[in-house]
């Protein structure tokens, strides 16, 4: 298993646990109502599961097990793979912080809103880096 795969899979486990923590907080909100009004943690919960856990687990396994691109470049461009890892993680973490904060502040174009835009761009770039690096490895044998 290549190092990038290990990083993706272990990171995905952390997001899996964090998603369940978010789920516990959502449950606790319903019981004690301690959260500021308007803070909806469901988007964080979904994205920790769907992007942090499942998608990153898939990306790690794809980088490891998909058909070789060429004999010289079996995993195509590992730098692009690492770029995908860094961009996706920076974007997701920034999103998990700025999305609830933006909901609390509530005014358009606050600093949290700007960070949300940055998070969107980082996640998008990370996703595209994965697609570009994997496309050529989807081939018949």
């Amino acid at each position, binding site marked *: 298993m290549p190092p990038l795969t290990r990083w993706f899979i272990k990171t995905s486990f952390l997001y899996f646990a964090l998603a369940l923590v978010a789920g516990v907080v959502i449950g606790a909100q319903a019981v004690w109502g301690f959260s500021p009004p308007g803070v909806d943690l469901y988007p964080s919960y979904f994205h920790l599961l*769907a992007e942090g856990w499942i998608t990153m687990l*898939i990306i790690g396994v794809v980088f490891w097990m998909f058909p070789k691109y060429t004999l010289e470049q079996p995993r195509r461009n590992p730098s692009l793979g690492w770029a995908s890892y860094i961009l996706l993680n920076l974007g997701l973490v920034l999103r998990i912080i700025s999305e609830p904060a933006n909901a609390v502040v509530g005014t358009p*174009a606050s600093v949290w809103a700007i960070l949300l835009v940055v998070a969107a761009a980082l996640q998008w770039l990370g996703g595209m880096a994965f697609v570009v690096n994997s496309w050529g490895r989807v081939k018949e044998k």
Partner: protein
Amino acid sequence: MPRLSTWFVRSSLVYLALGFTLGAILLVNKGLAFLPQVWKLLPIHIEMLLMGWFVQLAAGVGYWILPRLSGERPRGDVRITWLAFWLINLGIGLVILETLIPLPGILMIARLVELVGVLAFIINTWERVKSFAS
């Protein structure tokens, strides 16, 4: 990787790219609120990433790596899984269409098409869920 798997996986990568693009637009809109109508596209974002990305990636890889059957048809009747591919993609397309142009009954038809596609995949895969030795 068999040809059918390459179609499933490439389609899943296309939907990943489209779903991430729409997700980024939705998130930017959440921050800057530049176009409230964009929020209506959320069901398309969900459909592209759940059915388009996760389901098709899993189906393509499953068709590729699950134990093969003995005899002349190691992956069962390939036509049934091709049918699954086309029905799942038609269903996704109809869900997207229904979100853009709401028409009565289209969502139900779309889900029905997806259901038949998924059943076709399950039927042709069922026998391959076995020990490698058997």
